């Protein structure tokens, strides 16, 4: 599809915008979840939102997106509250509390949904699209609801930026400075709930937690500064969201939630491998380079040691000898070739190597000139 059709197709535009908005909000707010090790809390909260969706419909009879989202938010919030309370007051540990809340709330949600289904006024069709998301059905109203919730959340994050940063890094120090840590924690949890709730229509309950942490996890690999990280996470989230949503509405039988997760996971993988400094390939290359450098020096030292035994610093030695001396430390041949290209050694005949004057000088500088040998 070309750019022209993109802007002229209402559905596509709506879907793309919605997913981009979702990605930006969940990516930026998800950064804090990632840094505070609340990835799984996000998972629990998004599963816990299900009964809220059902109840919102039951109580108000309306399927207006804003109503549903508020219901979902309240339920998710209740779930988080439960986790914190249970963990704090009993010997049950956090992971068990998370698993409990996740599954029990979800179960309650299922009971409500199936119960609604059986009722005579069963017009709940559409409520179960919240399980996996159905971006293709997004309309203007949904976008408005998402924006109404999402934009203030982002603004609050920006407003209380330094407080949230401090809270995430050193809550005890924050407390000592006089900040109401519990209330700030509440604020952050609420912002997270908003981020989750916005994505429910697009990505669905089951996968929303990935939308929270994946963009941030990817962003972390590219920067060491919180502000840049949040920005990047928003960008990655938007890109992944948009790409996935657009693809899923253009191709048949491709559910939105999983497609977006695929996009965003790819971004994470690429970041993990290729990001400078932290990226795995980068680190691998760096390690390789330093190892090569060490091997190079070792061979130079070998040449130097041999030459000291010979009175003639430019006496040549057989490759086999050098190889033997390098036994277990990587190939001597590679290092010899490199030394040659650096002008520190030269080939003599087919099978022998010797130091050049430059090489001898370098070796003397590194390893001593024979005086003071232990």
């Amino acid at each position, binding site marked *: 599809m070309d750019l022209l059709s993109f802007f002229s197709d209402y559905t596509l535009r709506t879907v793309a915008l919605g997913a981009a908005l979702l990605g930006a909000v969940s990516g930026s707010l998800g950064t804090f979840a*990632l840094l505070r*090790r609340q*990835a*799984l809390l*996000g*998972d629990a909260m998004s*599963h816990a939102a299900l009964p809220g969706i059902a109840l919102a419909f039951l109580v108000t009879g309306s399927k207006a997106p804003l109503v549903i989202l508020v219901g979902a938010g309240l339920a998710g919030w209740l779930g988080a509250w439960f986790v914190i309370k*249970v963990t704090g*007051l*009993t*010997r*049950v*540990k956090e*992971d*068990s*509390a*998370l*698993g*409990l809340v*996740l*599954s*029990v*709330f*979800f*179960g*309650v*949600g*299922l*009971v*409500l*949904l*199936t*119960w609604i289904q*059986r009722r005579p006024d069963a017009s709940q069709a559409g409520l*179960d699209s919240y*399980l*996996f998301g159905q971006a293709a059905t997004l309309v203007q109203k949904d976008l408005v609801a998402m924006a109404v919730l999402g934009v203030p959340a982002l603004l609050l994050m920006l407003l209380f930026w330094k407080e949230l940063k401090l809270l995430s890094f050193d809550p005890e120090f924050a407390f000592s400075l006089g900040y109401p840590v519990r209330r700030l924690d509440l604020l952050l949890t609420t912002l997270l709930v908003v981020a989750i709730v916005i994505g429910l229509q697009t990505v669905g309950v*089951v*996968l929303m*937690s*990935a939308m*929270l*942490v*994946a963009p941030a*996890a990817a962003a*972390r*690999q590219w920067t060491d500064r919180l502000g840049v990280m949040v920005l990047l996470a928003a960008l990655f989230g938007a890109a992944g969201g948009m790409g996935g949503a657009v693809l899923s509405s253009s191709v048949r*039988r*491709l*559910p939105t*939630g*999983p*497609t977006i*997760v*695929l996009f965003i*996971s790819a971004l*994470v993988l690429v970041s*993990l491998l290729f990001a400078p400094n*932290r990226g*795995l390939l980068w680190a691998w290359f760096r390690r390789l380079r330093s190892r090569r450098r060490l091997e190079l020096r070792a061979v130079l030292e070998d040449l130097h040691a041999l030459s000291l035994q010979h009175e003639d610093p430019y006496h040549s030695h057989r490759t086999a000898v050098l190889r033997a001396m390098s036994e277990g430390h990587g190939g001597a041949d590679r290092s010899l070739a490199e030394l040659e290209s650096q002008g520190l050694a030269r080939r003599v005949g087919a099978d022998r190597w010797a130091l050049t004057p430059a090489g001898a000088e370098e070796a003397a500088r590194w390893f001593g000139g024979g005086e003071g040998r232990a």
Partner: protein
Amino acid sequence: MTPTQVEIQLIAAVTAAACALPGVFLVLRRMAMLSDAISHSILLGIVLAYFVTRNLASPLLLVAAAVTGLVTVALVELLGRTRLLKADASIGLVFPLLFSIGVILISRYAGDVHLDVDSVLLGELAFAPFDRFELFGADMGPVSLFVMLGALAANALFLLLFYKELKVATFDPELAAALGISPVLIHYTHMGLVSVTAVSAFEAVGSVLVVALMIGPPATAYLLTDRLPVMIALSVGIGVAASLAGYWLAHVLDASIAGSMATMTGVAFLLALFFAPGRGLAAVAGRRRRQRLEFAGQMLAVHLLQHEGTAEECYESSLVQLEEHFRWDKAFARQIVRQGEHLERWRLAGDCLELTDTGRELARAVVER
């Protein structure tokens, strides 16, 4: 009750029991969320196995599920080892990815088959009895019952054979290593069992509710006891009870059986949360209050002892002075004094408090502690 109803309840009970066993160690080893991760990601294994065998009843599915579960755990550990991600983020990334691939594969290439995503996620116990297990032409019962019995047997066998090893590996991994028990082996065997149990239970309760059955009853039991054998027994008992209660709830409401079962595990947990003897919230709140009173009483006894026989004895024991010294409010001060009088630690003699022998003993014991 119709035979079908009986069968459904039987399957539910066996499922709960089979899930409770590995769940106890998930809770104790703080790996509860791995059950969530595994139960989602094994979908991918099932789908791939289905593509190979084109048969939903093939035992290859079980194997594939077990393998996928182990792969999930291995991937999570691998990611964690890069030091680029923390443990929770690793889990939160791996299982959604695997699950998503599975869902997409189903939607695109198996959408017309019985492998309906909703049912994989949610399960529908009501349909279970329709799949019969036939031996020599005789109807033995529903397939799922036998599958779950198999899972139960596997878990029980593992528990019986390796109880000591499991116990040591869970509570003291270093000691286990020193004893030659490989914690890694135990770990991956445990995870394999979790995977196999999860896939067996798929048909009955779906992935998310496997988590409820694996975590809920053990967490509840954890609130009720300190002893491992009791915890295991309680987990099975609570799980079975919750699943049966859930069945009847679903029957009354005409709603999802699996959802009701999960709901009831939540109810069981809440009950234990509030009313567990010693550990429940009711008990804890009472204890905290008692503790405050007890500590204050002890401090007052010591205070009285320290000033006994001195000139200011009477002054130091007056209520006003107590409020000043200990910074207690009037009501609390009065409560402490009255409590001590009641316990015969001191008595009011005119305006002063006089220590009794009991009170003096208490004060001395406290100081010596």
